[in-house]
């Protein structure tokens, strides 16, 4: 057991203790500049409740989280079915398609900022088709959509590759037996494919959920949280309150809420998705 000690100590010092400190800070008024800390109870949480900016950041984060679970799962599975073939072309395409997932979110955000600019490639292409493109970055609603798109672009790539791996692990004789029994394409998908990719659904959902709830890099690179604070996520709000405004107590209250939301949603997802894995 002694071999596990160094890692456990490191984890306690730099992950477990900071979580405990965050909870403590959230119940205090903390000023690092004057090195003061004073107990205020739930005042920071009450301030958050009253803050329209924070409620909006929470709304943006949860909206992107829901979209990030639905879209990458759906499109990932669709693209995986398309790319699940044996030839070299498909092997090469699968390797290429995963590349977005390994790119820095900052790089992804910046290229999206360039592509989605008012006179960027996307709007030029739309214009060529006779469709007037929206203001992807400078309109409050579309800024949120753009941030979601940049994250989804990476997550779809991830989901596709994961689903292909799951599809390729399904024995082909299952499909053959079902065909002989006269099962239609839809039935084969419903009864064989969908249940057997269940573990990939679990992993994709969890990774997407966690990535969306901690969203920071994409937003900073793409919109900076703007226009105004229209596309600000909880991650951005925490860092701004904690570091830019030196309000560590308030930032910690946001952090505790984010942690509780993350823990609750992942726990529920695991429970629901694992049950599906067992049942079928």
């Amino acid at each position, binding site marked *: 057991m002694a071999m596990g000690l160094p890692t456990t100590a490191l984890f306690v*010092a730099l992950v477990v203790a900071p*979580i405990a400190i965050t909870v403590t800070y959230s119940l205090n008024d903390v000023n690092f500049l004057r090195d003061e800390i004073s107990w205020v109870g739930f005042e920071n949480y009450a301030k958050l409740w009253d803050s329209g900016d924070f409620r909006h950041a929470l709304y943006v984060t949860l909206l992107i989280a829901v979209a990030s679970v639905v879209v990458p799962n759906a499109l990932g599975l669709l693209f995986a079915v398309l790319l699940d073939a044996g030839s070299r072309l498909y092997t090469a395409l699968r390797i290429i398609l995963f590349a*977005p997932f390994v790119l820095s979110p900052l790089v992804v955000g910046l290229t999206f900022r360039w592509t989605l600019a008012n006179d960027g490639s996307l709007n030029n292409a739309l214009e060529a088709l006779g469709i007037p493109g929206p203001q992807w970055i400078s309109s409050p609603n579309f800024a949120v959509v753009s941030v979601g798109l940049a994250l989804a672009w990476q997550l779809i790539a991830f989901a596709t590759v994961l689903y292909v791996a799951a599809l390729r692990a399904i024995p082909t004789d299952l499909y053959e037996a079902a065909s002989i029994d006269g099962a239609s394409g839809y039935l084969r998908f419903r009864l064989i494919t969908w249940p057997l990719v269940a573990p990939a659904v679990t992993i994709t959902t969890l990774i997407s959920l966690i990535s969306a709830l901690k969203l920071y890099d994409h937003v900073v690179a793409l919109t900076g949280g703007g226009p105004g604070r229209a596309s600000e996520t909880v991650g951005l709000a925490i860092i701004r309150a904690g570091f830019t405004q030196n309000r560590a107590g308030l930032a910690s209250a946001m952090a505790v809420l984010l942690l509780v939301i993350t823990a609750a949603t992942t726990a529920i997802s695991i429970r629901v998705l694992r049950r599906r894995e067992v049942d079928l």
Partner: protein
Amino acid sequence: MIRQARALLAIVVSAFFLFPLYLVIANAFKTEPEILRSPARPPIGPTLDGMSGVLDAGDVGGGLVNSLLITGSTIALIMVLSSMLAFALHMSNSWVSNTIGAVILFGLILPTPVILIPVFRVLKYFSLQNSFPGLILFLCAYYAPFAVLVYRGFMRSIPKDLVEAASMDGASLGFIYWSVILPLLRPATASVLVITGVWVWNEFLPPLVLLGPLQGNTVTVGLFRSVGQFDVNFGQLFSYMLFVSIPVLVFYLALQRYFVRGLTAGATK
């Protein structure tokens, strides 16, 4: 006919996913007016102006060295620390080790912004704030849960008899770990190295906060800080992004098989 149509559709979908990366590569070798006129066009008569410009103007070189140093040390430490903990948890079945195993799993879902403020305070307590070792230790602790998960999943395929036989022969657990277990873990280690390597390289918020403005930047922080600076010179901005991306892309392409295998390790238990 259907086969060709499917291949075409597959190529179109993949090309769509490659487009932003294509933009980075193509525009890194174009001149400023060319980029502004037709950003999506391939570089005709490629120029190295952007690349040499960003090398002269910015701190790309230093940033690359710092990122390599931080990523290399972090993944080497993670490999040793996580496999040791995974082995200890694998061999023991006490309530202590079960608790540690469960608490470690919780680390998988932790968003970095949640703990960075207190992490800075803890590092300061140990006089490790604004330092490479402080950042490296934090990243090790933060990514250890994932590595432990991969290692534990892989260890299920290693029979406990093997370890018991070796300890019967008088070998210490440390010796067994080093000379029996670690070599067996090689495929899992490849997954851990490539996945955490890519994640650590791309980390932005922890180096931004924990290194502070006085230390050397990582390449991601450098890119972020230079955005305002290069707003007028897109050739240099795209070159900078290419410098940030090349190392991870090469690393991924070299070990891509292990990347996917490691990510599915948790799913196929």
